[in-house]
């Protein structure tokens, strides 16, 4: 019996050793060199795999970073400048600082401002609703409210507001990955520059109809009157197709455009309350 054991052990050892030798040479022969820095870079990334950088996940972005000669066109919106500094450090490249961005839904056509004129009871996704008709109100540009952006968001940064009829973006959670921008069939969502304290001055409207038509459909529609354009000293506002647009990269948050807007289409958020100037009236001098 003992001899059987010895034979068994011996044969198995020989097979094992020869397999190991073969595997060693095969592994040497077919070895794929992978830059160790890819792993390092990947580790420094947030591992959100959101695709906000334009690549298919964090690994693909890490590979692109390692291959790139400079980091001008590469940015991880989730990690921001901090992460990109780390990446630059690993790769020995110069870090490029980029403004943080935040998504914003350019429609304030809530139920109160935008009366319903018809009813839709088909499949409740914005993509389908937009492909068959223009919306439950007279504004064909505005938010449909079925929440395709909400479904697309991986970061719980969008809240559906049944009371408003238009979803709201939670700035603290938004990482500007752009998934909602892609998802919105009405092209309402824009990635804007993130200002300190989440302050913003935005034309919250996409209505490109003529003033009268726009106004009829929604009380807070932009009518393209260009008053804000004239008021802006920084050339941040442009009017195109009856619609004003504030370029967040040029805007200095002076807020001068807000009060001149006749329809309150420009909104300001997270600012301290304005000081109300009490104009001193000249006294009536008729009674003497």
């Amino acid at each position, binding site marked *: 019996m003992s001899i059987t054991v010895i034979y068994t052990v011996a044969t198995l050892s020989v097979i094992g050793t020869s397999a190991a030798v073969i595997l060693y040479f095969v592994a040497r022969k077919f070895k794929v060199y992978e830059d160790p820095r890819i792993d390092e870079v990947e580790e420094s990334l947030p591992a959100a795999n959101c695709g906000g950088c334009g690549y298919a996940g964090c690994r693909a972005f890490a590979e692109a970073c390692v291959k790139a000669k400079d980091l001008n066109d590469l940015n991880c919106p989730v990690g921001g400048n901090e992460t990109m500094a780390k990446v630059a450090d690993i790769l020995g490249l110069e870090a490029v600082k980029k403004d943080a961005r935040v998504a914003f839904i350019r429609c304030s056509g809530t139920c109160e401002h935008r009366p319903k004129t018809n009813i839709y009871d088909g499949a409740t996704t914005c993509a*389908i609703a937009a*492909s068959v008709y*223009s919306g439950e109100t007279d504004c064909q540009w505005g938010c449909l409210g079925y929440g395709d952006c909400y479904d697309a968001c991986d970061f719980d940064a969008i809240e559906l507001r049944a009371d408003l009829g238009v979803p709201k973006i939670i700035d603290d959670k938004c990482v500007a990955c752009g998934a909602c921008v892609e998802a919105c069939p009405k092209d309402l969502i824009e990635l804007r520059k993130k200002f300190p304290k989440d302050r913003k001055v935005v034309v919250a409207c996409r209505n490109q109809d003529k003033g009268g038509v726009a106004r009829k459909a929604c009380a807070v529609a932009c009518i393209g009157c260009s008053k804000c354009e004239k008021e802006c000293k920084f050339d941040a506002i442009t009017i195109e197709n009856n619609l004003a647009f504030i370029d967040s990269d040029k805007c200095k948050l002076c807020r001068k455009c807000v009060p001149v807007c006749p329809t309150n289409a420009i909104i300001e958020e997270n600012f301290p309350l304005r000081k109300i100037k009490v104009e001193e009236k000249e006294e009536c001098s008729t009674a003497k």
Partner: protein
Amino acid sequence: MLKTFKKGGVHPPENKLSAGKSIEVLPLPASVFIPVAQHIGAPATPVVNRGDTVKVGQVIAKSSSFVSTNIHSSVSGKVKKVDFQADSSGYPKQGIFIDVAGDEWIEEIDRSEELKKEFDLSGEEVVKKIQDAGIVGLGGATFPTHVKLVPPKGMKADVLLINGVECEPYLTSDHRLMLEKTDEILVGTQLLMKALNVEKAVIGIENNKPDAIQLLTEKSKEYQGISVVALKVKYPQGGEKQLIKAVTGREVPSGGLPIAVGAVVSNVGTAFAVYQAVQKNKPLFERVVTITGKAVENPSNFLVRIGTPTAALVEAAGGLPEDTGKVISGGPMMGRAIASLDVPVTKGTSGILLIKKEESKRTGYIACIRCSRCVSVCPMGLEPYLLMTLSEKQIFDRAEEDKIMDCVECGSCSYTCPSNRPLLDYIRFGKGKVGQIIRSRKK
């Protein structure tokens, strides 16, 4: 044993309320809005300006490419403006607004009621006249008729099918036309046969219209090569591919046109329009529209000028019933709800259907229970439950492999689903996306 198509099909309640009402002429509206895109293909280009005076039958928008048609004025009067107005989907479409003044027709049109049987024209001349008259398929698909009559190279039609099926519930416009304009339809059919150079034409009519079958069978004896076939009632027999299968037994291959099996299909309404265009020089500017619904006071069939607002039609039928939930342009199966009563009647409007509130409401849907009813009723042999899921999850390559483009959007799947799932909504969306992908690949 009556003929019908093999795969699938459903039997919705027929509700042909207006079948006994003869066609009446709707009074002229005060103003019309004539869209420039009333057909499949490129929109026509407006050739009139604000302030121009137009006559009935005058070309107001010219066809811009081969797959496109001319648009003619349906009224006489002054062009108010060339502008945009919301169509049935709510999105604005370009069109011509005309204020009606009098009823002056262009001189070329022969307005006599007299039947003109004889014609001495070549096939090309007939096609030319059809093209100039702006005729499109009046069954609802609005595909330009002249394009159908010129088969692609290497293909030849051997049979013309005239579609008198009218399988959509409620609609009766084709039925009435067959009863009242029988000879005109038969002459129109002969003209189409001449244009296609075929010896044989078959008129397919569903068995729920025995009077039309009898009348046409009798009269068709006077015309060479035309026969009438009675078909078993089944929706969607009026679909081009289903009708070909039912009448000839041929099956159009996946992704192919009817001409691939040597058949061309035209609606009875189209045959009538062809008669008027060729024999009477009358372009397509009016059509028969059914206005119906269970709560409608007076469901009827009207001869309506293109561009007439839906509101005028509703008014003529006794006004909008109080508990109307939806106004549908077309039939209940394939028609679409319109967002406003300002939407005009176009070349493709076969009916206006008013549905009561409680009937119109779509309730929520629940999970698919894998009963496969949608599969068994699909006339194209597709798997609607699968196509819906693929569209929902946006897996468009699989959807294309599973032949989503073969869907004829008849709605039998949604109609039959016990879980009330919006199958067609999703499939239509997926079809649109897959279509985009295919087009971008060709570029």
